[in-house]
């Protein structure tokens, strides 16, 4: 039992934090948006050069051979900085899917080499970033199809989040596009990594609110010295503190694939979603009218929080998973960890 990152894990995470803190500031986001670029070329190259896209790919395939624990920590940072590029989805969902295919038609190697594969999974009617993708993994009746970009047509669906370039994808499934019989753990990975991003988003919203509250004066003192403002920030922080360990545990347990592990992912998704909701909501309140505007940076995180919350399953879906776990597995003080639960069958 060692519920902590190793030194190696810490080092990877710190390197990513530095890279993204430097290259993905709010000013960068605004510049990228003004330029209409889905991907910031310099940042994306640096991310690829660090090997992050292959973080979870086997070393034999040219990846780093790390796991969901490391990637969840990276995803939290991606949420914190508001990363527009599809690093998390590529590294955490597309790459494991491709790596699990009998015949990936060369796409795993291409992705590790810089190609982008977008995801049209069953939980979401739209595909994010489809226009900038080289290929798409698409769902057809639960089966997995791999389709190259020129073979689909796209209809843009405007999202509240300007960095979420959503599309309806029109395409024709054929025997030739079919590459797998199912999505495996993709939905769980997506939900977990969404949760990790939401924790980062929540923390960023709190940090921005705290900075504003220390600065903004009303009635002759900083608004952050008022108890009501303090408690808005503190309540959000409590939510974050009790969502983050759940995300970490879900990342560590996800490979088990058991109901207990899936319930942990669902718990992480709910807890992180609510933390991000509470934190962005309270941050808007602390910012006052400023928080409603395009001029203050907070809105980027408000939008991402809304978009990610349901992107890999709704709260209702996640509650259903937890209800199933509570109904069919025992509960008790000695059964905290999924590893303590007898594996069915």
């Amino acid at each position, binding site marked *: 039992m060692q519920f902590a990152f190793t030194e190696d894990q810490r080092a990877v995470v710190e390197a990513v934090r530095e890279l993204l803190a430097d290259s993905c500031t709010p000013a960068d986001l605004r510049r990228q948006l003004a330029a209409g670029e889905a991907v910031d070329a310099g940042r994306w190259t640096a991310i690829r050069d660090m090997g992050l896209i292959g973080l979870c790919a086997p070393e034999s395939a040219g990846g780093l051979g790390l796991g969901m624990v490391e990637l969840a920590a990276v995803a939290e940072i991606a949420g914190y900085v508001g990363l527009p590029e599809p690093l998390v989805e590529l590294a955490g969902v597309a790459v494991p899917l491709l790596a699990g295919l009998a015949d990936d038609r060369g796409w795993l190697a291409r992705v590790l080499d810089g190609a982008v594969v977008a995801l049209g999974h069953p939980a979401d009617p739209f595909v994010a970033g489809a226009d900038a993708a080289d290929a798409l993994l698409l769902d057809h009746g639960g089966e997995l199809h791999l389709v190259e970009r020129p073979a689909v047509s796209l209809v843009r669906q405007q999202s509240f989040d300007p960095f979420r370039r959503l599309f309806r994808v029109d395409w024709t499934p054929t025997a030739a596009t079919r590459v797998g019989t199912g999505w495996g753990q993709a939905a769980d990975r997506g939900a977990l990594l969404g949760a990790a991003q939401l924790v980062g988003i929540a923390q960023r919203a709190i940090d921005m609110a705290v900075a504003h509250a220390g600065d903004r004066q009303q*009635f002759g003192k900083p608004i952050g010295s008022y108890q009501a403002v303090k408690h808005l920030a503190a309540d959000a922080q409590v939510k974050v503190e009790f969502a983050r360990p759940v995300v970490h545990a879900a990342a560590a347990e996800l490979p088990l694939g058991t109901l207990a592990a899936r319930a942990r992912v669902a718990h992480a998704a709910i807890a992180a979603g609510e933390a991000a909701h509470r934190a962005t909501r309270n941050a*808007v309140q602390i910012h006052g009218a400023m928080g409603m*505007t395009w001029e203050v940076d907070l809105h980027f995180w408000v939008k991402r929080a809304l978009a990610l919350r*349901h992107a890999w399953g709704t709260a209702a879906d996640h509650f259903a998973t937890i209800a199933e776990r509570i109904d069919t597995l025992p509960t008790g003080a000695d059964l905290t960890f999924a590893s303590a639960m007898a594996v069915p069958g």
Partner: protein
Amino acid sequence: MILEYTPEQRAFRSEVRAWMEANVPGAPLPSFDLTREGFEAHRAWERKLNEGRWGMVTWPEELGGRGLDLIRWLIFEEEYYRAGAPTRVNQNGIFLLGPTMMEFGTPEQKARFLPRMAAGDDIWAQAWSEPGAGSDLAGVRSTCTRDGDDYVLNGQKIWSSRAVFADWAFGLFREPGSERHRGMSLILFPLDAPGVTRRPIRRMDGEMVFAEIFLDNVRVPVADRLGGEGEGWKVCMATAGFERGLLLRSPARYQEAVRRLVALYRRHRDRLPASIGERVARAWMDADAYALTIYQMCSRLEAGGQIGPESSTNKIFWSELDLALHEVALDILGPRAELHGFAPDAGDVGDWLDGWIFALAGPIYAGSNEIQRNIIAERMLGLPKG
């Protein structure tokens, strides 16, 4: 306690309903916070309302109204929202400045401004807040310097809703050298006066809901001061009471939103957990509770009562209700919640997202809910000041 409408009230409802059915535009008007065209479309609607003498039904007939009591005002509002009529572009005028002018204005001011207001000829913006004065309105620093029969206005206003396209604004200004609650006056000024510069502030979704107003030696006649010189704080607090309390948020708004919420829920309930049903029921209950409370308050006001600190309980309740009901809707929409209503596949996404963004502002403006809770604790419950 009679909770039935009289035959006369029912007849009035029928009259409003018939007019609305004949006149409410079939398609929604374009936003009044995005383009001049949208703004003018809403002005045209205000003019049409005024032709039917529906501009502000509680005002005296000679000022463009119908002299009706508050119960009929509620009935009018119910039918207005039921008909899906456009949001009132002149709400700063008719709901805030109007009642204030009715209380503090001179006969000349009333005759000059109110009929044009009811007719949509003058659309009003409010200009209270400043960069350093939000919840702390006594921190206003913009000045009005008396110069003969004129005031010379200088300073900067912010969060002025409608100010991007509006005709007139009313704002708080202080005598140079005065401090806090003293020495302030409420002054009306045309937004196209020499020395006025407006800078739109984009809301997070791009709408230009607010503007900053810069005033550089703007000259206005002393006659355009509302209320006594130096009595701006008192006048302004009366307006704030209207804003928080009765007028700005008629219950019909929420009841109609709940009607749409129930319809949305029905379309999706097969795949939704029962807890969503309970949240829908809570929104339904809260909208009704708000309506009942306002009806009771109007009955009391008609009997000669006054609005007190309950304008603060109202404000907290409607702002939290508004957020909660939009949040249920977004949770029902799930992965489609992030879509704008104009996305090609938006389906029944409607304007829930838009309404949610608007609702986010509810606990902030018209005095933040934190300030309202202080007011309730201190003025309603008698707890000591902090």
